[in-house]
């Protein structure tokens, strides 16, 4: 059987195919088709099947990472959407947290809600803070508000009632009435999208979900149908922001969960490849054309965050904690009003692209700097794309003149600044959260990650860099090794003591019941079922929580309830690491109970790099590379494909492959491990 991952990016659609029987891997890359992303997927899949000799009924699974939801949000191309909310609160989505995005900028505003005020309708009902019904919801009330929604042109409706996470009945009744009356519109209930307290974040997430439902629903249906024709025996999985797959139907209902679909897949791929390399603790650096994503992985697990801003709107959902900075190959160098040089966040993008692409770009970019310094070759993608060093020099020359620098020194300055920006991003996910980056390896991927990893690692005093075998296609690889996943949450605010530990048993049983039902629905065998249970906890009166993992149980085994007492020590430990202190005397409370259900569907892994070799690798050539402004160094160039397990390369060296390039600095030593990773010892 073949497991295939397909990651749709802004420029390219990448494929990673794994034969589960013999471990064979086939890669493929095709230009994306933004007007209809499924075209590139199906065309690319056809080409891959033809070139690799994959038959239609040999495909067991296709996993898909998508940016359709994110792009729909950024371009505001979602549906016309109405909101139903509790009487007295229709402005809540507009007020948000009553804060401005920038303290000093009087013209910067958070965007207005995607449902304008005349599309937001109130219904007479109220649930209180203990889940009690303060004002009942009447049939007349339901009819009146459903009439109101029916009276406006709308493709979707978000139902957002206060305290629905404690008592979802009112939302469900309204949802049922809507479905009956308006069967063709998308409907999102806040108690289903994210049943957690803090109304603004829940409502905003629900509204975004409704806004996306019609568009993504159509996309998923089309893709599902056309894919079934190509690969009748395969299951289609859609990657979610929390780093696991869901069914196409689920994705159509919960499109907001795909907001970070692609980057999350990259992190899953990084975890997998780092685990093969025997490195449980890594910081990822995924650098592409316009931005760089960094994430921290500890003990083979990525940190999960719950709050994120997408296209100016807050969403609250479990998501891999990824920090993005506007630093990519296309990032443009410019001078600020005080004369200091900056790089990014403005990017030349794919069109016109950096000056050296010869498509009309004239601004100096990071790629132009890399080309001038000999770090990039004069052609990319195996010769399919020429880079013009003269155009790059011309683009950088005015900047060099202004600085009174040589072009090479200016190019090094551009790299220095873009590296400083990435270093700050890494510090913010490590140092600022109580982790020392020196305890981690740097996993560099994306087209440009390994070009700059040496500089980033040096600045942070990190001693080791890992470059996976196919750094440009790691997201697609992550999709192949992903499991099926579903997150369940219940908000229960209870003091943490012996009595309440018994009181949560009922909630836990309920959550587990829902998880088991989901497993059954997805056809996951008992042995492949895994539940991770965690509690969001805090000190009483704190306004933020820490997610404290409790147990991971396999195959439907009952958890040992007595071990709940261990949560206390784990909470202290986490509080100490996150906030620098803890106290044993202050009372603790539980706020949310979380259950992550994982259905193991990923294939077994095999080493792929073949026979170990102790011979010296031979370079395919050499070129002048600038590591310092004074002089260049004649540097050997190797082909990645020619390096086999056990071989090593001493810097300075450049390693080229189809869609990525690795710079090994003078003083560094790279060797290839059994899984094809390039492990670079910094300053060896």
């Amino acid at each position, binding site marked *: 059987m073949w497991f295939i991952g397909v990651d749709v990016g802004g420029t390219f659609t990448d494929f990673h195919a794994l034969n589960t029987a013999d471990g064979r891997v086939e890669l493929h890359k095709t230009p994306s088709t933004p007007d209809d992303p499924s075209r590139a997927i199906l065309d690319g899949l056809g080409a891959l099947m033809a070139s690799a000799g994959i038959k239609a009924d040999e495909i067991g699974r296709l996993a898909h990472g998508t940016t359709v939801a994110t792009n729909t949000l950024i371009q505001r191309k979602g549906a016309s959407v109405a909101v139903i909310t509790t009487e007295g*609160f229709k402005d809540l989505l507009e007020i948000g947290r009553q804060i401005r995005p920038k*303290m000093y900028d009087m013209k910067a505003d958070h965007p207005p809600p995607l449902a*304008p005020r005349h599309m937001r309708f109130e219904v007479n009902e109220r649930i209180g803070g203990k889940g009690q019904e303060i004002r009942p919801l009447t049939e007349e009330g339901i009819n009146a508000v459903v009439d109101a929604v029916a009276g406006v042109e709308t493709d979707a409706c978000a139902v957002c009632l206060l305290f629905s996470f404690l008592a979802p009945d009112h939302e469900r009744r309204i949802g049922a009435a809507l479905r009956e009356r308006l069967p063709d519109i998308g409907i999102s209930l806040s108690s289903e999208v994210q049943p957690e307290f803090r109304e603004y974040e829940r409502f905003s997430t629900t509204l975004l979900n409704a806004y996306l439902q019609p568009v993504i629903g159509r996309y998923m249906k089309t893709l599902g149908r056309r894919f079934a024709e190509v690969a009748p025996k395969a299951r289609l999985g859609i990657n979610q922001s929390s780093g696991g797959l869901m069914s196409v139907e689920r994705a159509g209902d919960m499109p907001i969960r795909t907001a970070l679909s692609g980057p999350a897949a990259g992190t899953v791929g990084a975890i997998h490849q780092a685990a093969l390399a025997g490195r449980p603790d890594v910081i990822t650096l995924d650098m592409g054309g316009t931005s760089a994503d960094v994430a921290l992985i500890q003990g083979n697990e990525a940190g999960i965050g719950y709050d994120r801003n997408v296209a100016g709107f807050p969403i609250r959902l479990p998501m891999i904690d990824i920090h993005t900075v506007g630093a990519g190959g296309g990032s443009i160098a410019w001078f600020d009003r005080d004369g200091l040089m900056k790089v990014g966040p403005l990017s030349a993008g794919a069109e016109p692209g950096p000056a050296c692409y010869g498509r009309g770009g004239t601004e100096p970019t990071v790629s132009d700097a890399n080309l001038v310094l000999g770090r990039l070759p004069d052609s990319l993608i195996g010769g399919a794309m020429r880079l013009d060093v003269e155009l790059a020099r011309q683009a950088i020359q005015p900047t060099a003149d202004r600085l009174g620098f040589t072009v090479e020194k200016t190019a090094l300055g551009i790299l220095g600044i873009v590296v*400083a920006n990435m270093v700050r991003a890494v510090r913010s996910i490590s140092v600022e959260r109580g982790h020392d980056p020196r305890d981690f390896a740097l996993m560099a991927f994306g087209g440009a990650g390994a070009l700059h990893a040496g500089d980033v690692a040096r600045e942070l005093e990190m001693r080791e860099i890992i470059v996976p075998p196919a750094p440009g296609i790691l997201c697609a690889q992550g999709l192949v090794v992903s499991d099926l996943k579903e997150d369940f949450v219940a908000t229960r605010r209870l003091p943490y003591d012996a009595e309440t530990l018994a009181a949560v048993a009922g909630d836990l049983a309920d959550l587990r019941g829902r998880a088991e039902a989901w497993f059954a629905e997805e056809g996951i065998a008992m042995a492949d079922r895994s539940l991770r249970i965690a509690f969001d906890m805090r000190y009483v009166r704190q306004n933020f929580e820490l997610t404290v993992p409790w147990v991971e149980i396999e195959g439907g085994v009952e958890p040992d309830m007595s071990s709940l007492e261990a949560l206390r020590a784990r909470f202290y430990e986490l509080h100490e690491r996150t906030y620098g202190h803890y106290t044993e005397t202050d009372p603790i409370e539980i706020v949310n109970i979380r259950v992550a259900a994982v259905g193991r569907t990923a294939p077994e892994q095999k080493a792929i790099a073949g026979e170990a070799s102790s011979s010296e690798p031979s370079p395919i050539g050499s070129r002048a590379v600038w590591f310092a402004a004074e002089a260049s160094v004649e540097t050997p160039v190797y082909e990645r494909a020619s390096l086999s397990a056990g071989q090593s390369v001493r810097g300075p060296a450049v390693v080229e492959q189809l869609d990525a390039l690795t710079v090994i600095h003078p003083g560094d030593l790279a060797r290839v491990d059994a899984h094809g990773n390039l492990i670079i010892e910094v300053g060896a």
Partner: protein
Amino acid sequence: MTTSRTENIPSPDPVTTEIMSNALQSVVDEAFIALMKSAYSTNIKERHDHSCAIVDRRGKLVTQAYNSIPVHVASVLGQMEALLKKYDLSEIHEGDIFAANDPHEGGGTHLPDVSLAKPVFVDGELLGFVCNIAHHADIGGMSPGSMAGGMSEIYQEGLRIPVIKLFRRGTLDQDLFDILLLNVRVRDERRGDYNAQFAALNLAERRLQDIAAKNSAALVAKVFEEIITRTGRRMADAIAGIPDGVYTFEDVMDDDGREAINVPIKLTATIDGERAIFDFTGTSPQTPGNINIPLHGTKAAVCYCLKAMLDPEIPNNHGVLDAVEVTAPPGTMLSCVAPASVASRAHTSQRIIDVVIGALATPLPEAAVGAANGANSMAVFAGSDPDTGEAYVYLETLGGGFGGRNDRDGKDGVQVHITNTSNLPVEAIEMEYPLLVESYGLIQDSGGAGKYRGGMGLQRVVRPLGHTCIFNGVGERFRNQPWGIFGGKPGASGSFWLMEDDKATRQLAHKPPDMELHPHQAVVVNTPGAGGYGDPAEREPAAVADDRASGKFSEAYMTEHYGPAPKE
């Protein structure tokens, strides 16, 4: 010390300066987060009422953490000025930590803000200082929280700390520390906050020393100078872009902190080439109530405003401050002297900003905005939970309208200018306190009409559940409306109301003191809206139609300001 290590070193180039200032920014941002995380009190942990900075050996601000509070700039500068006046450089040693909070002697702006500074030495030579400021939830004095209205002398507001040396060469002066802690409520929490401040200083010191070790201290010192010089140049260029002239504006506070009388703030702003002089002569003498502000606090408010109007992205350092001259006669509300009380100076800061915008609206019409809600509208509910018997205090500051702008409407229901604190979710309030929030929304007709209308005020209706609680409110712009600009109409003022059995029955004072609130009653908090920008007659028909469709304005209001609805 007469020689400077920066002599004979060329100015660092724009690339080196950018990379180094990026590293310095990391130092203060990291210290900011470390302080936030290790502090004990909610005020720091969640409302982020703290700041971190690096200053050079002359006491000049080099860089401030990105999320720092604008008014805290004043405390950094004030403290450094007081420190360098009191201590000779020969008396400043590695491991010392200085503390201060007093607005009259220690460079502070109000007592709860405790500023700390630690000198940073490299190879035995002073490179500069790392500083932080934290708003302590209590600093003693006559009322819990040290912020209540009605206080008339600084002595009533809490413990006054001049610049003192709290650590000498790395050793804490326990006797002094014991005095600091004995004079405040909830001593353990305060100790935790102090420890967090010490730790953040030590962290920033270590990081700065690392940078010096990597690059040479001489280069770092030179980069300090370069950053300030470049920012000063950028600010001076921006000021030079303002048409020369003398511009005046006057506005009033609703009360003097005790009595409802108009208290004037008067400004004469002179722009002369690269010079900008803000003279507040003619402003009210300092008031008996605690709305006074020391001159360096006034300067911080003026600088916020210039930065916001001219160049929001300009780095926050001494270059901005050096480019601006601010004067006010000593003994007036904006340059108060001992024993003036100052706790509520935030309201006054908001009004200073309105006045500066009003004055500069003539030369800078595109950067000006209608008057915003101009307040830190505060509502406090306190009592005991009838279920648990536990005491609770729920305090919140509410946003309101932001003024109309030259190319867009003012934002509705938002914190403005120097305040940017988040609201507490309704679901958090009701899970935590025995209170019911009956509604939370925008107030119809509260945004001033205009070509670009002013933002709308917020209304929140709160009722105690099953018990009687105490309500305290502090309002500004409750008697005077936020003005419109260039023909824009004023926004609505704010108000507090008592509601009985679902009917608003009685308007309350604008700073209602401890008031009993029973379960059949509710308090209505109405915050001010904001003024519009430009003549309402010039409002785009599409925008007028949107106003009508949104229901934010009554038909009567629409007809009055924009004419009758077009016939279908």
